[in-house]
């Protein structure tokens, strides 16, 4: 038996934490920091090379802390390693341009995708990896644990307890990883109050907080104005509801964001109800509070929704529907991205979403040249969870179709891509080769950035029909099934007409007529709401859309 080594110190991280706190003393009164002192505080406690998590997803952003970090002197704060969900703010990019940060592990870079690509090409940034949310959250507890996290909360009390409001999002997972590994937790809050409506993060986990000069920025990213839904999208929604939701009896599901899925949400209480589907499909959801879900909720289709984050304007509606949404004792929404992603991965029978490009293997990608967008959460939801063990009718049926005559040992998640064959002239959705391959070469990546792997995809819905890839018995069949719904794109026109008709006979490809859908019925009159105003009415005046979506 080896004796313990006498000189080994076992609490170096805790000592380092104490040293950071010591250096911060001049810039804080207890845990409270004045906005004007935030830069000095960060300069005092950060050390070169620190792993830092700057909170921000595609909704709420710790924007004041990000700007404060970007205002630090690169002489004092440099070579940071950022480990965070989303690069969304200009100040995020400044960190790299100024040399304050050097290395990056992240998930998604929507608004900054172009600037990020330029930084990569000019070697001003080292990318560790691009993750899905769940992977990144997982690595927070394995090898990418933040030493300092800068988070956003709704309110703090004098002791530093935090209330997160409806946009909980990533905060719990970030704080958990940081606070319990001797890291420093700094929060920006919108207001300091006497009594919090509820405590979401206890003061003992929080080191500093600052009342930001203006409330943290939140984008209404999940609002789709029904005015912009086209007849083609209505047609595809009809096909999806009749050919997939009804066919498999999909009760638990997640919707991607976009007009295609918004159309489905708005067709459930009209077309879906006319098919007798109420209570049979779309009962339990992993979904942000989409305004376009209101009519289906009001019609009694939707029984329960758990959310990743919130949506601007939906606060009062959510609070008034606690049987449907997860809410705190104070009435406001309790969202949680890590848990909702887990639910989407393991507890849902279907994911349906849209994409920009799809190849003949069914791989799909939203990557376009010159932009690094990353993945976000779609691949977590849009993949078959091979670890799943519990059964459901939809999961079993899909699994049976995949295993064919072989012995069935597992089910299969329905992963549905719903796309128009052309996005616009010169931009066919179906391609022989994804732009992602070119992007991989340009950016020196290990793999092409594929959002949904083809072997996870079960169905492709286009205006021409539905291709059921579960029933395909070879890569060639799969390719013909995709060509068979690819319309007049070059990929679609290169189909083998005979093979495609065979696939249609076998039910692998189903046209609207095969589903008993008359294309003439696909009009906007089927939408349960045709405008934002209709959604407000459907909510009984509880939904309060942001001003850019109103016309009153």
């Amino acid at each position: 038996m080896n004796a313990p080594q006498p000189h080994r110190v076992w609490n170096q991280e805790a000592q380092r934490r104490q040293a950071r706190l010591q250096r911060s003393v001049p810039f804080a009164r207890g845990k409270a920091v004045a906005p004007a002192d935030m830069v000095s505080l960060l300069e005092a406690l950060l050390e070169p090379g620190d792993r830092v998590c700057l909170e921000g997803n595609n909704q709420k952003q710790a924007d004041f802390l990000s700007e404060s970090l970007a205002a630090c002197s690169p002489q004092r704060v440099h070579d940071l390693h950022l480990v965070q969900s989303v690069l969304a703010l200009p100040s995020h990019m400044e960190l790299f341009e100024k040399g304050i940060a050097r290395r990056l592990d992240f998930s998604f870079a929507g608004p900054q995708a172009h600037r990020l690509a330029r930084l990569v090409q000019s070697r001003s940034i080292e990318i560790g990896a691009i993750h899905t949310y769940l992977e990144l959250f997982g690595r927070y507890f394995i090898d990418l644990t933040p030493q300092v996290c800068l988070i956003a909360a709704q309110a703090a009390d004098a002791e530093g307890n935090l209330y997160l409001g409806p946009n909980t999002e990533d905060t719990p997972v970030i704080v958990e990883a940081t606070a319990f590994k001797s890291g420093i937790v700094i929060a920006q809050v919108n207001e300091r109050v006497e009594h919090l409506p509820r405590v979401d993060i206890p003061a003992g986990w929080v080191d500093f907080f600052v009342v930001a000069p203006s409330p943290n920025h939140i984008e209404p990213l999940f609002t789709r104005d029904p005015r912009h839904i086209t007849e083609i999208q209505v047609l595809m929604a009809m096909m999806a509801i009749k050919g997939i939701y009804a066919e498999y009896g999909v009760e638990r599901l997640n919707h991607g964001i976009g007009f295609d899925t918004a159309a489905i949400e708005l067709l459930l209480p009209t077309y879906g109800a006319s098919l007798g589907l109420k209570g049979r499909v779309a009962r339990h959801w992993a979904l942000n509070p989409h305004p376009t879900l209101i009519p289906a909720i009001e019609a009694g289709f939707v029984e329960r929704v758990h959310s990743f984050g919130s949506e601007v304007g939906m606060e009062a509606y959510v609070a008034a529907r606690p049987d449907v949404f997860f809410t705190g004792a104070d009435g406001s929404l309790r969202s949680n991205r890590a848990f909702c992603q887990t639910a989407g991965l393991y507890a849902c029978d279907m994911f349906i979403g849209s994409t920009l490009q799809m190849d003949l293997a069914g791989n799909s990608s939203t990557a376009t040249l010159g932009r690094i967008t990353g993945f976000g959460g779609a691949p977590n939801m849009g993949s078959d969870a091979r670890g799943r063990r519990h059964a459901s009718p939809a999961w079993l049926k899909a699994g049976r179709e995949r295993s064919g005559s072989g012995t069935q040992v597992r089910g299969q998640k329905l992963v549905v891509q719903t796309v128009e064959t052309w996005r616009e002239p010169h931009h066919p959705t179906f391609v022989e080769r994804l732009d992602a391959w070119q992007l991989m070469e340009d950016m020196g990546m290990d793999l092409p950035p594929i959002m949904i792997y083809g072997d996870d995809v079960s169905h492709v819905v286009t205006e021409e029909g539905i291709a059921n890839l579960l029933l395909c018995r070879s890569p060639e069949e799969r390719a013909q099934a995709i060509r068979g719904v690819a319309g007049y794109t070059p990929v679609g026109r290169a189909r083998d007409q005979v093979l495609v008709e065979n696939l249609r006979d076998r039910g692998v490809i189903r046209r609207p007529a095969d589903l008993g859908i008359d294309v003439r019925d696909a009009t906007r009159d089927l939408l349960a709401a045709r405008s934002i105003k209709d959604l407000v009415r459907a909510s009984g005046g509880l939904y309060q859309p942001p001003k850019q979506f109103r016309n009153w």
Partner: protein
Amino acid sequence: MMTNPPQSFREASARLRVQGLLDAGSFTEWLGPARRITSPHLAALDAPVSFDDGVVVGQGLLEAQPVVVIAQEGLFNGGAVGEVHGAKICGALLRAIEMRARAVLLCVDSGGVRLHEANAGLIAISEIMRALFAVQAAGIPVIALVGGTCGAFGGMGIVTRLCDALLISEEGRLGLSGPEVIETVKGVEEFDSRDRALVWRITGGKIRRTLGEATMLLDDDIPAFRAAAAKTMGDRPRQRGLSPDALQTLEAAQRRLEARATLDPGIRDGQQVWQQMGLGEEVALMDPAEFNRCLEARER
């Protein structure tokens, strides 16, 4: 299941609006699409043309009364007025006099002058104004219907205010300069054109009805427009020779407009107008019928 959805005026094409406004099967189009009188000026600039140059004109019956109907297509080049488009409107107005129409229904859906043929468009709008005066002088009321995607702006915003009555939906907009133009020239602080709520509080149907410019605020529903047009036609007979523009009438109008212009100089938002009337947030969600009742009560 849902009840019958309304037949949206906003979402309908000009042609469908005409069909829905008139008695079934009564419409006869003048210079229809088969005549292919398209704009040579758009073609010269290699821009897409339309068989009717973006306006449908003709005659039909409204509750068995002969009317002339003119409907601009807001989706084609923003309903903008070019040479052919403008001449079709002018000709249709003058023909209302020839055929002794009971009324003219003018469905305005236009941003104003078509830039591709700006000079022709500007002159055409001035010609439309003069033709409209002639129609009114002949004792024929002109009823403006506004509820399309483009609203009524620029010169067509002026023409709309020359009409005897204005029927507008809440979605309808009326003004002179578009918010985008004002923002471009004067800055976002003057007018944030992306703030749709603000845009509607300045130009939208509700504030235009509040200020007395619109006769009636309507649901976004073609049958509602049809019923209101028929009612207006019955309510507002114009008598031949009795000019509405008699000096006393215009002097009274002058006083009303002068009074409005003295509105507190700090007022730059429809909301402030409603506040002054003792109306609050509830205005936003009032449906048209409720809103009309609310205003009528105050007007009494």
